[in-house]
């Protein structure tokens, strides 16, 4: 009840603030250099492999503009999931296969000096459906050196279980965001993003359980279903910048701070570098992330029903991750013709490692419960994509 009222109060206060903010944006009598996004076609193949799980599939994105006033974009993405992660293996379940599809349709409208974006997206899998609508408004200020975008989105999820056809729970989600970009010099630009997200409904994974000490069984622990609070509100703030280097390269960096009402706080730092060499563009990036655990998380609870809320999702544990990535793009066609402006093929590879600081590998049952080695995850992410601008 306390948690629910916290959400309600937050949302009730946010709406007037955003209303005033939107009105302020609309009332600005200033020049605008807003332009629609470029027309493009993207074809992508993605692959994730780590912790005995493989997720891969194709994706496509098309954007078409009309009369320099309207831009319509749509994307379709497929995730083919196979394997059995640590979460599945610990609970004794076998490897599984499933498919997730994701689609969106969005419209950009350039009206006088303002750009509006609105759209709809959905994601479907056999036991989880997510639907969402979003709207944003953006405008340039101060001689077009500053751009401010206000966004709102609402999501509706339906959580199911492949093992129980009667199980169905709902989640509703609101997101409010502000994005500011600021041109600092002819070679430097700064971005600041703020986003508040509120969830209400069934927020845990219905398949997952927590473990607790149970001396009556030989391995020393037993399982009981997770219990999450039914509300969560999170705040994230990021600041990032890009600097152009005169030999045809750019250097970028970003930092993000995050906290939520589950007492998780996190920091993410990323540095990236891109350089053009003739018709090639090469890129490298490194990303660090760290977070502490949710207040109701434990790897091993002392007894059954030890708390009112219980979680052992490794995503809510104390963890740190590092990602190192490389990319290369090749301009297949650089001369503009009547139909095509540019064509580019790209390959990106990232090595992603997560070290969990209080999530133990419970597959190992030869040691005393709670002394198993800490779990870590290593994954390879590969994307190959082809882009045509027209």
């Amino acid at each position, binding site marked *: 009840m306390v*948690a629910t009222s916290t959400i309600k109060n*937050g949302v009730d206060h*946010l709406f007037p*603030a955003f209303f005033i*903010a939107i009105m*302020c*944006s609309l*009332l*600005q009598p200033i020049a605008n250099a807003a*332009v629609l*996004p470029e027309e493009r076609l*993207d074809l*992508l193949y*993605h692959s*994730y492999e780590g912790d005995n799980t493989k997720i891969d599939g194709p*994706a496509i994105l098309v954007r078409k503009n009309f009369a320099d006033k309207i831009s319509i974009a749509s*994307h379709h*993405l497929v995730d083919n999931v196979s394997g059995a992660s640590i979460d599945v293996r610990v609970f004794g379940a076998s490897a599984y296969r499933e498919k997730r599809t994701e689609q969106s349709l969005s419209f950009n409208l350039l009206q006088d000096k303002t750009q509006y974006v609105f759209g709809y997206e959905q994601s479907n899998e056999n036991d989880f459906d997510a639907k969402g609508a979003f709207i944003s408004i*953006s405008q340039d200020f101060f*001689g*077009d*050196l500053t*751009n401010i975008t206000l966004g709102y989105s609402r999501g509706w999820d339906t959580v199911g279980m492949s093992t129980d056809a009667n199980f169905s729970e709902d989640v509703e989600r609101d*997101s409010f965001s502000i994005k500011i*970009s600021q*041109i600092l010099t*002819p070679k430097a*630009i700064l*971005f600041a*993003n*703020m*986003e508040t*997200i509120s969830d209400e409904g069934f927020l845990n994974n219905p398949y997952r359980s927590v473990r607790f000490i149970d001396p009556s069984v030989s391995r020393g622990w037993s399982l009981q279903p997770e219990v999450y*609070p039914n509300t969560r509100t*999170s*705040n*994230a*703030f990021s600041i*990032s910048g*890009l600097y*152009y280097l005169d030999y045809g*390269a750019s250097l970028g960096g970003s930092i993000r701070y*995050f*906290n*939520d*009402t589950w*007492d998780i706080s996190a920091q993410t730092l990323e540095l990236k570098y891109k350089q053009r060499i003739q018709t090639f563009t090469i*890129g490298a990036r490194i990303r660090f*992330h760290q977070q502490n655990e*949710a*207040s*109701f998380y434990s790897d091993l609870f002392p007894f059954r*029903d030890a*708390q*009112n809320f219980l979680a052992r999702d490794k995503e*809510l544990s104390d963890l740190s*991750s590092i990602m190192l990535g490389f990319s290369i793009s090749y301009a297949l066609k650089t001369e503009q013709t009547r139909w095509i402006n540019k064509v580019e093929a790209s390959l*990106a590879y990232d090595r992603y490692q997560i070290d969990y600081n209080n999530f133990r590998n419970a597959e190992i049952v030869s040691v005393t419960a709670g002394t198993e080695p800490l779990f870590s995850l290593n994954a390879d*992410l590969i*994307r190959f994509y082809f882009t045509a601008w027209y």
Partner: protein
Amino acid sequence: MMTKFNRTKKHCFAVKPILFLFLVVFILSGCSIKPWVKPYQRNKLADSLMSPENNPLDDKYMNHAFKSREAARGAEATSGGGCGCN
């Protein structure tokens, strides 16, 4: 029953700073600010090397990958606005 979970209220920059920010922007927009970067000086900013997005599909995919494996979400650096000069 032991009750470890103790909710704390955290709305660090949710409401008042947003209102304050836009009031400041609103007031300042009445001032005549001379742009210190002219439109003809923005060719480097318009270069694709200076885009906060890598590729819209790839960024969407990577943000989903992170959100599935980490607790943090929102305000992704790859979803910045733009300099309005593409």
